[in-house]
């Protein structure tokens, strides 16, 4: 036993002698191992980095797909409701109106009270028809699908423009139609922004400009209403603006809002277009 330990010690002494070739071998081996380790670690890191960016891209893609899903589902739903209103309720009301017309004529109402009642009923049906038409139109304007964004906006502006609020619309570079989903989203965004103006701004003039330029579509919506301070901004942003941002983000665009009390509000939207 002692013999072997002595032999071992001798061996160890010899081993740590720098001139011993086996220590060189060991050092070389260690360097090789660490080199391999470092390389593989870096490779791993790189992979992880790639994985993270891959994951981020995935998340962004997922988010955009979610937004797309929500927006297309939303549009499909609107289209369905507009269709139901038009084909269901609208036609029923129209037919009701015609039947009432005939019925009252056949009854030959002589009592003025009765004929007043009949007229009232007819007027109410008329009013219902108009309501249905307006709601269906807001849901999904026929003209947007058929004739495109420029026409639909012109139509929309005609409807909201009044003596109290002068609305001007400028469209340039939109001779050719944009992609269907882009048109729908832009229409909604403008509709939503303008509705905000109608509801809150108390403005007397509203300027909508839509310009298609190389690679982008820019929209500015400017009112001369009461505006808001930066302190109120959050409150303002709560109102419908989230919807606008979601929709614009879906098209990879940006929204810029600027306002101060008494100086109106500007909403500027920029969308990249292929």
């Amino acid at each position: 036993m002692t013999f072997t330990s002595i032999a071992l010690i001798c061996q160890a002494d010899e081993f740590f002698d720098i001139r011993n070739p086996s220590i060189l071998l060991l050092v070389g081996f260690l360097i090789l191992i660490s080199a391999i380790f470092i390389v593989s670690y870096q490779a791993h890191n790189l992979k992880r980095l790639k994985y993270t960016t891959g994951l981020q891209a995935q998340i962004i893609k997922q988010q955009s797909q979610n937004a797309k899903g929500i927006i297309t589902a939303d549009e499909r739903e609107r289209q369905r409701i507009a269709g139901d209103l038009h084909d269901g309720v609208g036609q029923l009301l129209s037919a009701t109106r015609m039947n009432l017309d005939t019925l009252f004529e056949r009854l030959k109402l002589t009592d003025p009270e009765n004929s007043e009642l009949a007229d009232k009923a007819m007027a109410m049906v008329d009013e219902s028809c108009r309501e249905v038409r307006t709601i269906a139109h807001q849901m999904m304007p026929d003209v947007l699908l058929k004739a495109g964004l420029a026409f639909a906006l012109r139509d929309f502006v005609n409807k909201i423009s009044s003596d109290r609020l002068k609305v001007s619309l400028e469209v340039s570079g939109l001779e050719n139609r944009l992609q269907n989903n882009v048109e729908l989203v832009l229409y909604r965004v403008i509709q939503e922004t303008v509705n905000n103006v109608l509801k809150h701004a108390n403005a007397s003039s509203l300027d909508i400009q839509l310009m298609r330029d190389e690679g982008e579509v820019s929209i500015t919506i400017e009112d001369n209403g009461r505006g808001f301070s930066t302190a109120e901004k959050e409150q303002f942003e709560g109102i419908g603006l989230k919807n606008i941002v979601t929709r614009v983000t879906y098209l990879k665009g940006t929204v810029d809002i600027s306002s101060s009390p008494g100086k109106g509000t500007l909403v500027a939207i920029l969308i990249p277009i292929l």
Partner: protein
Amino acid sequence: MENLKRIFIVDDHQMVIDGLRLIINTIPGFEIVGDCNSAHQALDILTETAVDILLTDVSMPEMSGIELTRVVHKKFPHIKIIALSMFGEAQVVAEMIDAGISGYILKNTGKQELIEALNKVAEGQNYFAPEITLQLMKSFKRGQESESSRLTDREIEIIRMIEQDFGNKQIADLLFISERTVETHRKNILRKTNTQTVVGLLKYAYERKII
């Protein structure tokens, strides 16, 4: 009364046809010679049936009233066409006029209006419901107004800043907007004033006393 005007009705909603029948049957001088629920069917029947006036729905599945009007107007030019619709959007009305209609009425029409529309169209005139005429006039007026471009308050403010030789960055900071939005404003301003350079723009602004 020998010369009854023959009417044919196309609408994908039977109840609307029934309602129209009730009313038109009481109007002297006209008779309904047939009806159907699709434009394709209508084209088939029209080749065999003599008709003077066609009352057609505008939005129908498969073949719309617009297409039907175009075809009927070409194949049977003697048939007068009246559009019948829930909606009266200017653009759609304009398209129907292009396609060849002689009249346009809304579906919540009453007997008085139908009498007027049918008689006028039978005499070779046109009839458009008051609401439709209003829509058309509005869109016409709008179209004219947009010819002359008006600078907005914000744009005039920006021209003033350009006059003071402010760059996009400065303007952006002053107005709390992004530089790209300033760029959009600049483009809009140049387009509206039909100028290409700052010098040209300022000349335009001075001449018109905008700033």
